[in-house]
């Protein structure tokens, strides 16, 4: 973990409520896709934990969905604003376990960390299948970006306005060779994906209301089959066999 100042370079709207933010700064503490940053906002006491979409040695891409006052404030910031950021938080996805036929499953804003993950998998010679789910076509984003990487991409929308009608689980079932999932999205999606028999194993990224974001306050602890885990420090990625779903309501 590192605490440093980042500069907001650019904001690009992706949908009516989702934005892409490019920040420049010291990214040396970031070690794996699926990690997150915790951003201090003027006038808010708690920082805002935001998943890392992608990063290079000098900049950081975040995808932010406006869900409340804090995220609204974040996307309203003017380019040039300096932000106090804790970077490189959480465990991140472990690509080494994913085998030759991984599928990356994302729902809504949960798509964000899968982009940096897919890019690194491709760099390492694995072509991941990417399955993304949205409510409707107007909510979809980052499809061109995933296609440009060279992923095998499939999309599902709940109303059928884009791709398969239904959920991301349908996309996974349509790729029966994929046996390992790396997933991020809303709880019902994660749970449905977790239950698919074709998946021998997988990694699931969880959200939590956090106090500190670096493991000190025990605000986000959940029970797992491997004992109590802090979503911020021991997660946000939990492994298929250790998740106790009753914990998450």
């Amino acid at each position, binding site marked *: *973990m590192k605490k440093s100042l980042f500069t907001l370079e650019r904001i690009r709207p992706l949908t009516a409520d989702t934005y892409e933010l490019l920040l420049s700064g010291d990214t040396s503490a970031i070690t794996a896709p699926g990690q997150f940053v915790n951003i201090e906002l003027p006038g808010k006491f708690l920082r805002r934990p935001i998943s890392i979409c992608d990063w290079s040695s000098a900049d950081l891409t975040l995808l932010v969905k406006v869900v409340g006052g804090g995220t609204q404030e974040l996307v309203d910031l003017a380019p040039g604003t300096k932000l106090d950021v804790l970077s490189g938080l959480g465990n991140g996805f472990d690509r080494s376990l994913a085998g030759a036929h991984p599928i990356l499953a994302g729902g809504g804003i949960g798509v964000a960390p899968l982009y940096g993950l897919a890019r690194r998998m491709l760099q390492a010679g694995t072509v991941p299948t990417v399955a993304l789910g949205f409510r409707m076509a107007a909510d979809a984003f980052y499809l061109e970006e995933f296609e440009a990487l060279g992923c095998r991409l499939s999309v599902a929308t709940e109303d059928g306005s884009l791709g398969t009608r239904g959920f991301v689980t349908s996309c996974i079932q349509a790729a029966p060779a994929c046996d390992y999932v790396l997933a991020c999205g809303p709880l019902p999606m994660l749970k449905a994906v977790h239950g698919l028999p074709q998946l021998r194993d997988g990694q699931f990224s969880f959200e939590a209301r956090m106090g*500190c974001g670096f493991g000190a306050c025990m605000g*986000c*602890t*959940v029970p797992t089959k491997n004992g109590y885990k802090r979503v911020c420090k021991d997660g946000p990625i939990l492994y298929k066999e250790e998740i106790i779903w009753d914990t998450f309501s």
Partner: protein
Amino acid sequence: MTVSLAGVELKNPIIPASGTFGYGREYAELYDLDILGSFSWKGTTGAPRLGNPQPRIAETAGGMLNAVGLQNPGIDAVIETEVPNIAKLFHGPVIANVGGFSIEEYAENCRKLNDVDQVAILEVNISCPNVHAGGKNFGCDPKAAAEVTRAVKAVAKKPVFMKLTPNVTDIAEIARACAGAGADGLCLINTLLGMRIDLRSRKPVIANRTGGLSGPAVFPVALRMVWDVYEAVDIPIIGCGGVSSAEDAAEMMLAGAAAVEVGAANLKDPYACKTIVENLPALCEKLGVAHISELTGGAHQ
């Protein structure tokens, strides 16, 4: 910068508060803990506790609510695993925050710490429900607070500081009861009971319904209570509540604190205590204070 708490010498008055600093591990990755006066470890009970269901955290203007529910591995595991690790991370005196749900549990937990050399002070959190008295909070009743104090003092070989809850009508009355029962010092305040409700779900944000408010919002409340308690008792006070700068710490000392705990500020800025420690000497110089302990009670004239 040295201060003394019931005979325990600290190199400076800055102490990370219990529940915001774990057992030191996370912060030791960021800075050398030896710059601190002490630290108060996570509230530890007899049995291991998972704590409350999620969510446990909510934000509010100027602070946060938490209902962690005393999640801790239990006193035996702490002595076996955390104490040897703390010895590697920090070489000063440690404050052991101890919880309990019965008078017997408090006493037993404190007795077990008698032989832990690095623990210099016992900080007894009496903001816990008494399971033998219908869940009534020990710290809300002067008789119960005195009973816990007496029971702990009967077995403890280290100075005992009672950590007081602010959720009472007259905190000075509780302070006098603890002092009268033999407490060596007091620590105040714990968090203020609060609540947030989600507009869409119409349910409390925190699964436990209520949570403890901490952060800058509680600072003036804590300051006033330290002031009142300083007037009421003659034992040392650790001031705690909303401190986030060297200036806040000095203000807390002027109200009557001999040392100062820093809590929620650590969660927002993991370097908060380090920054305060670094800023204190220049602040003292600016204020014309030759020794920091001169500040204690300096506003009472």
